[in-house]
């Protein structure tokens, strides 16, 4: 596993020029601690040594080698996680030259998002402003985007990235955290949309035929990947490496989960059946309805990365609040959920997407878990991230209130124990232009 090694490299190298040498050891005092996985601690302190949480309690004094931050009665939360974005891979969505999403081709499992992460992207700082310290960055723009090449099934490997680091290597928390997949579906395009996209409106029969063909090709690709794995293990004299098929090995071995974008009940069911048959680990992503899939997902222990709660109902005659109640519906069915946005410029609003679900039935503490510990568990990094616990990476935010409320201000942020700036292009424009006479 590559994570610990890369992470140590990141710790050793990053940020030191900004805040001095021993900048990742700190005592944060006089705060209300929200560990997420344990009851809140009022008037508490957290000791961070070398970027990791060393102690949590009410009687932690100053330490030599660790600076002291007086929290002034503020709230201390773990850094928030957005479990699905394209941050770092897209700057200005309408300018193709600034976009590195949606590579050409149907199966691209060998593509790695982290290597195209632009550490100078303005979106990194902007996203931090809401208390987000970590994101998954996906190589595909998603099932709902118009841009995915027709019939793209596997877009590549999504990376778990810290919103900090001089280079993408330093920012990477867990490269290849998920394999980004759009489950084939009958892709009906409303006629007026077809005109906009300058595409012919195909008959339903033709669309069904294309869908079945994509399903067949997908099955065949997984079969190829399995045969490749066997051939490699046997390493006969005529074995030749294949970059694409080799990238599938962690998937078919059940080590890397497929993040399967499946909007509708039927797609979710088919994705679960597919995972069963192929014996791969999956996460359902960006569903727009639960239908009868709740029990199925629970039974198979399949988690869900939710897309935007602020969304329109899928059908004209769906209840007006269908997208708002969806997270609560999955939770009530016993499915583990976390939140993502599947975009770039609104990645910072993921706490609000969770909050809207609270208004419509998701318990508040579950919404908060969906931004922290659940996300870490679903992405396989709960030993490192997602809560304030001894031994975990010190990704912390100091706030003057509930991070899911817009009126709350994020006051300070620590990534791996190092304080990072909350300034961004947005605050700089504010400072500059308020001064204009």
């Amino acid at each position, binding site marked *: 596993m590559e994570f610990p090694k890369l992470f140590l490299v990141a710790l050793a190298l990053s940020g030191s020029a900004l805040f001095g040498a021993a900048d990742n050891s700190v005592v944060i005092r006089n705060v209300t601690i929200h560990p997420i996985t344990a009851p809140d601690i009022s008037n508490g302190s957290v000791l961070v040594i070398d970027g990791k949480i060393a102690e949590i309690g009410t009687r932690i004094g100053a330490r030599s080698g660790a600076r002291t931050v007086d929290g002034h009665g503020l709230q201390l939360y773990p850094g928030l996680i957005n479990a699905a974005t394209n941050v770092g891979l897209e700057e200005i969505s309408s300018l193709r030259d600034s976009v590195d999403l949606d590579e050409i081709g149907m199966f691209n499992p060998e593509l790695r998002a982290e290597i195209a992460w632009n550490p100078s992207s303005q979106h990194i700082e902007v996203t931090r402003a809401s208390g987000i310290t970590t994101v998954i960055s996906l190589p595909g723009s998603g099932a709902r985007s118009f841009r995915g090449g027709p019939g793209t099934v596997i877009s590549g490997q999504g990376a778990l990235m810290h919103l900090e680091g001089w280079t993408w290597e330093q920012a990477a928390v867990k490269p290849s955290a998920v394999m980004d997949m759009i489950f084939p579906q009958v892709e009906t395009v409303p006629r007026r949309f077809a005109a906009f996209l300058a*595409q012919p409106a195909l008959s339903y029969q033709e669309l069904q035929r294309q869908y079945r063909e994509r399903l067949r090709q997908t099955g065949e690709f997984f079969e190829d990947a399995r045969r490749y794995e066997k051939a490699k293990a046997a390493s006969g004299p005529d074995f030749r490496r294949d970059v694409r098929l080799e990238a599938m090995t962690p998937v078919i071995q059940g080590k890397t989960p497929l993040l399967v974008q499946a909007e509708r009940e039927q797609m979710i069911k088919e994705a679960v059946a597919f995972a069963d048959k192929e014996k791969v680990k999956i996460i359902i992503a960006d569903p727009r309805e639960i239908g009868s899939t709740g029990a199925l997902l629970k039974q198979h222990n399949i988690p869900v990365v939710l897309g935007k709660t602020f969304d*329109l109902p899928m059908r*004209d005659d769906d*209840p007006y609040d269908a997208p708002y109640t969806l997270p609560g519906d999955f939770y009530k069915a016993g499915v583990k959920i976390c939140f993502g946005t599947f975009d770039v410029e609104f990645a910072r609003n993921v706490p609000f997407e969770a*909050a809207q679900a609270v208004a419509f039935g998701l318990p508040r503490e579950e919404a908060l878990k969906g931004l922290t510990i659940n996300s870490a568990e679903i992405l396989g990094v709960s030993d490192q991230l997602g809560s304030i616990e001894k031994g975990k990476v010190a990704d912390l935010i100091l706030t003057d209130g509930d991070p899911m409320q*817009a009126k709350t201000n994020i006051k300070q942020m620590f990534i791996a124990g190092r304080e990072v700036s909350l300034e961004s292009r*947005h605050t700089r*424009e504010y400072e500059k232009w308020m001064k204009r006479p």
Partner: protein
Amino acid sequence: MRRLIPIACAIAMLAGLSGAETILIRNATVLTVTKGTVQNGSVLVENGKIAAIGKNVSAPADATIVDATGKYLMPGIIDCHSHTAIEGGVNEGTVSDSSMVNIKDVIDPEDINIYRGLAGGLTVSNVLHGSANAVGGQTIVIKLRWGKTAREMLFEGATPGIKFALGENPKRQGYPSQNFFSQGPAPERRFPGTRMGVEEVIRESFTDAKNYQAEWKQYHDAVARGEHPIPPRKDLRLEPLVEVLEGKRYVHAHCYRSDEILMLLRVADEMGFKIRTLQHVLEGYKVAREIAEHGTGASTFSDWWAYKIEAYDATPYNAAIMTRKGVVVSLNSDSDELQRHLNLEAAKVMRYGGLSETEALAMVTINPAKQLGIDNQVGSIEVGKSGDMVLFDKHPLDYYSKVQKVWIDGHDYFDRDKDLETRPEFQKKKKALEDKLKVAEDTGTRQGKRNASNAASTPMIEENQ
């Protein structure tokens, strides 16, 4: 599918809609926006208008009493930039000046997004033409009177408008490129293709309008002298522009960059008309002083940015900066989705720029009302204004809040409890239609299919994959 909506919502509406009765909303936290907050307050609505506000308001015996204990009452939300309820295309994009077309002619009262907007507390929308042309189509203000006809939705007495557009969108027709996903030949080019050309279109259109105005004045003067001249030829493109010159029609101008904003203000000064609102106006913060001096309102997004190069200098502090520099600022949706939670969009100005709760609420109530010239009728809870109000279970700037009830002119247009109540019945009806479809499909007969598609419109087949 669209044809099914009226059934869905007729059920909800028949259950919920009542006449212009006398209503007393009691014991709410009343957020008047313009006159402070009344704790444990009551609001009386009579004949569609707010008749009394206070801690002790008595009501006639036949008044409907709404117990709002623990709840929050605010004015109906107003969206200064909407494309909801437009049947078909939003843009007449074939010409650089499309001032002859009118959104009023294509209002679709059955657009389900009207009901969805209501359910988010929205009561008034400024329904705009698109941004494909420097001088765009005519626009209209509506009240979201769901269940009524298009004509009945028009906001009585609201000044109509016209859409202008600057920057990338109107330029795009000048250098149409095949976008990402399009196939087939690129469309034909038309002027303008630069910001300079956009300015020229506006200048030329208003030069024509002034000449046209002068011709009519000559004609009317001659008639007044008792002569019998031949009237000028009526020009449907120039008529609305003359109305702009005469202050009878508002200009709502889509814009992004500070240079083009300033350009438009200067052209308007030169031609002798006012820009009523700047729409989007993401770089308004750079020329806030000039915008304030011109007396123009700014209607912007809470936090949109980076979706195109002219939106790359955007900052969510825009609303706060312009407010601090004396501009009347509103937050708009431009979206069927965003219009459903403008109160929550408004809450963001508290984080980005530290505005107060009242300033935040004003951005989606009294400020857009001022911009649309309807602030004497709506936009705050004041005696004499329309009974357009929204009841929330929590403070409307709280992200855990949701809308309970919405009134327009004292009519009950949305009631969450009633919406929830009618759902099982609607689901039953929908299921019956789907079953019918299934039977027909299973039977597989041509007649069966025909019957089924008559019973449930064909798109449903696609919906179910």
